[in-house]
């Protein structure tokens, strides 16, 4: 029986239901010290004095780490634009001035003490003097004439430090020929990852003398590299291990406490103290202290014929990158490729900018710029349909990218384009042609009986495409190792195997997917395969758990490793080893004016969603009755885990669209708690979410697999906005659609309030 297509249970499930699973915050090795990471609490200021003497003398304190202890005081996933620690003096090299705090959660010091309470109280004794610098609060402030620069050292010499262009055809003529022009300006909100486990970790020197950090992250080898860079150590002097991880969603792609924990261990070591160090952030520290899905603004115009065929798209997009780049340049790339939608667009002028401010950094979050681009393109497409009295599904049929279509960057999409089929399946499953259903009774307040009086019902549709794997010329690769065991007999088949790779299981079930694919590739049972995962000391670089890439990339690496091992087995090797480094077809960066045809990606995933909702026009409350998510997953590895990804992504999208309202004013997060930042609870979710999985193989995917974990998040918000229009005749160009916002926009349009 094939190991694929089976809903096998996760290998970690038993430990997770018994409470035995030890997450990074659950590790209390003997003699462990606590490291408290002190934030600067200064959105923009220069430090002129730092005095840690009183803290160092406080009860229980073992050491205090400051900028003066950092060998190379810079880090960053894609560019070194952030100091590890802010301080007036730094002995180390740094590409970025180390005496300026650009973010309220820049790190100032690490206080290492016997207990957490001692470390926290000693931190209050740290003295520092600051010279205020002008605050760049948001995109408007950053782009204003004469705005102060957040990064004066950046060669761009502008807060808008990263600019991407696509110029295609002749957009001016397209607009002259247009029968209809749809114009909109969209405000896109932040989203906080809110993984249930705040940042935590433990660090120590292992038996081979390596500085070892056990932490929750998304890419062991990248963490290892950044730690080694900042500590000026050889790579193999640093080891990174991922224990079970309490969710990630992109929020653990960048460093949180990895480098500072390693620094703490090193400082202790220098003093001859061989003790492990642990750290854990509170929820508030987590929300203040890590990046967010970018807020941004997009102004766009679409030109179309009276039949709803697109002639041209113009868009100017700005993402608030916040105080440091993190992955903003890459996220911007995805927005850039999705903002004109998954459609044939013959003429386009797209300009996208990442903008430094003193707000919380923007960075990776499930969809990685795609949800922002998709909100804009799909709302535009729904508005186009409405303007022409066309059905939202029909207007998509007339424009959607299909096999052989030329994409926005003037090259054909990689083979296996299945969005037309996905759209049709979604429409069928949602019974899209059926007449509208009557409004449902809504009870906005428990004290009032539900009524239908003010209730309006509507349906909405949206679709999306998103790249799988890293784009724009990134040297993508993934490594896997397989060792086959069995009898020496020449005709014998292997009876067991070891599988080594570093791909992170952040909760999404990647490790189970690896085992099922390895079982399929070797012909063994899943139980016969012993995993060795997520330890830089034992596994090669499998790359990041992001960009919906892990099953796709690592699956290909597993296939290659299995083939190599099989060859060795046939040659009589016992055990038989197979090592494989998979590299996908190369991709290309856009040129500066975006005119040259470019292949930015090697694979895509395709999704469509239909929603059915009621809205109370008096109170602004929305109830979502039904969500159909149709997605081409290429080949189902594990049905239960795939539907788990779809349902989880849809509910995250539900929060993004309806309730999650992160308030950032003057560089400070104002609501860093679950009491004020509302992620959906079990009572807030749609009445039903239906997953429709298509299996149209990706010709390049392992066993036909496509990446899928991000895509279901993308079309939800624009589908909801489309449904709200269907229900009320009013368009929303910003969200989250909290009751006060819905009420206010409806009132302004003259709907509701008798």
């Amino acid at each position: 029986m094939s190991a694929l297509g089976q809903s096998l249970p996760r290998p970690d499930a038993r430990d997770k239901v018994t409470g035995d699973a030890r997450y990074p915050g659950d590790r209390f090795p003997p003699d462990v010290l606590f490291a408290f990471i002190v934030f600067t609490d200064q959105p923009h200021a220069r430090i002129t004095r730092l005095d840690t003497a009183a803290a160092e003398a406080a009860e229980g304190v073992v050491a205090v780490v400051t900028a003066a202890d950092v060998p190379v005081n810079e880090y960053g996933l894609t560019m070194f634009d952030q100091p590890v620690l802010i301080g007036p003096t730094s002995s180390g090299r740094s590409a970025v001035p180390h005496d300026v705090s650009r973010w309220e959660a820049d790190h100032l010091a690490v206080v290492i003490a016997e207990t957490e309470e001692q470390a926290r109280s000693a931190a209050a004794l740290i003295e520092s003097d600051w010279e205020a610098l002008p605050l760049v609060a948001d995109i408007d402030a950053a782009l204003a004439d004469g705005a102060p620069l957040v990064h004066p050292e950046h060669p761009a010499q502008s807060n808008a430090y990263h600019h991407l262009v696509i110029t295609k055809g002749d957009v001016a003529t397209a607009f002259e020929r247009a029968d209809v022009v749809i114009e909109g300006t969209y405000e896109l909100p932040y989203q906080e990852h809110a993984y249930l486990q705040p940042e935590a970790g433990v660090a120590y020197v292992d038996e081979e003398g390596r500085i070892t950090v056990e932490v929750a992250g998304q890419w062991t080898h990248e963490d290892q590299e950044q730690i080694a860079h900042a500590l000026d150590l050889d790579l193999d002097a640093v080891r990174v291990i991922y224990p079970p991880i309490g969710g990630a969603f992109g929020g653990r792609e960048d460093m949180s406490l990895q480098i500072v924990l390693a620094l703490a261990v090193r400082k202790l070591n220098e003093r001859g103290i061989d003790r492990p160090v642990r750290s854990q952030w509170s929820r508030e520290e987590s929300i203040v202290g890590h990046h967010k899905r970018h807020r941004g603004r997009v102004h766009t115009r679409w030109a179309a014929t009276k039949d709803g065929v697109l002639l041209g798209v113009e868009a100017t997009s700005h993402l608030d990158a916040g105080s440091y780049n993190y992955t903003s340049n890459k996220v911007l790339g995805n927005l850039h490729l999705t903002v004109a939608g998954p459609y044939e667009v013959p003429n386009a002028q797209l300009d996208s900018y990442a903008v430094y401010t003193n707000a919380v950094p923007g960075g990776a979050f499930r969809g990685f710029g795609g949800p922002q681009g998709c909100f804009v393109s799909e709302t535009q497409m729904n508005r186009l349909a409405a303007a022409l009295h066309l059905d939202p599904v029909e207007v998509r049929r007339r424009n959607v990218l299909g096999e052989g279509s030329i994409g926005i960057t003037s090259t054909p999409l990689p083979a296996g384009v299945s969005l037309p089929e996905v759209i049709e399946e979604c429409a069928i499953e949602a019974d899209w042609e059926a007449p509208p259903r009557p409004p449902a009774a809504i009870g906005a307040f428990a004290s009032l009986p539900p009524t239908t009086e003010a209730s309006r019902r509507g349906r909405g549709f949206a679709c999306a495409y998103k790249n799988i794997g890293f784009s724009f010329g990134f040297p993508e690769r993934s490594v896997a190792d397989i060792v086959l065991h069995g009898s020496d007999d020449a005709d014998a088949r292997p009876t067991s195997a070891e599988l080594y790779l570093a791909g992170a299981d952040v909760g999404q079930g990647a490790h189970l997917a690896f085992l099922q694919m390895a079982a399929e590739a070797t012909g063994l049972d899943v139980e016969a395969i012993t995993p060795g995962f997520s330890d830089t000391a034992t596994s090669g670089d499998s790359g990041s758990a992001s960009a919906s890439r892990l099953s796709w990339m690592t699956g290909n690496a597993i296939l290659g490793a299995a083939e190599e091992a099989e060859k060795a087995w046939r040659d009589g090797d016992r055990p038989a080893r197979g090592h494989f480094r998979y590299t996908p077809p190369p991709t290309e960066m856009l040129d500066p004016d975006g005119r040259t045809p470019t292949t930015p990606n090697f694979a895509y995933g395709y999704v469509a969603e239909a929603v059915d909702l009621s809205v109370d026009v008096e109170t602004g409350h929305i109830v979502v009755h039904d969500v159909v998510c149709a997605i081409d997953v290429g080949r189902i590895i594990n049905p239960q885990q795939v539907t788990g990804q779809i349902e989880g992504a849809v509910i995250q999208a539900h929060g993004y669209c309806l309730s999650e309202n992160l308030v950032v004013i003057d560089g400070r997060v104002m609501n860093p708690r679950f009491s004020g930042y509302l992620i959906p609870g079990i009572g807030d979710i749609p009445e039903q979410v239906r997953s429709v999985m298509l299996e149209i193989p990706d010709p390049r995917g392992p066993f036909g697999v496509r990446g899928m974990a991000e895509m279901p998040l993308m079309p939800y918000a624009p589908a909801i906005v489309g449904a709200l229009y269907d229900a009320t005749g009013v368009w929303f160009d910003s969200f989250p659609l909290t009751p006060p916002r819905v009420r206010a926009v409806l009132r302004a349009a003259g709907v509701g309030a008798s």
Partner: protein
Amino acid sequence: MSKTHVTAIINGDQTEFLTEDGTSLLNALRDDVGLTGVKEGCGTGDCGACSVIMNGALNASCLVFAPEADGATIVTVEGLADGDHLHPLQQCFLEGAALQCGICTPGFLVAAKVLLDKNPNPTETEIRYALAGNLCRCTGYDKIIRAVQEAASRMQEA
């Protein structure tokens, strides 16, 4: 600082520990008793990851001071299984993929146990009400609801 001596029945065993007055039951259970199955998701009573059963009632242990547990009977996720034999709720969460990262799982299991102890045959609405204090960022909740329904029906048959 003065320490308080606490004696409680935890997962069936008489347990003693020393704690400071301001320490939460959550921290005492994790740091002093070693029950790290009890998770901290927020520390402010908003997420339910730290849920324990105290004297038969569901409690957010982050909102309980450790000395309040003196004389109490406490059940944590570690106390649900009978040796190697999983509780039906645990078995159904495992089989039904009602967990991804699993950080929320101990809290959901404990909250669902309190529900089923009182109401062996809950409706879907009753399940949603009973689990309304627990957040999950990964699963989207549907598989959690199905797992609780499945456990209820298995327990009824047993």
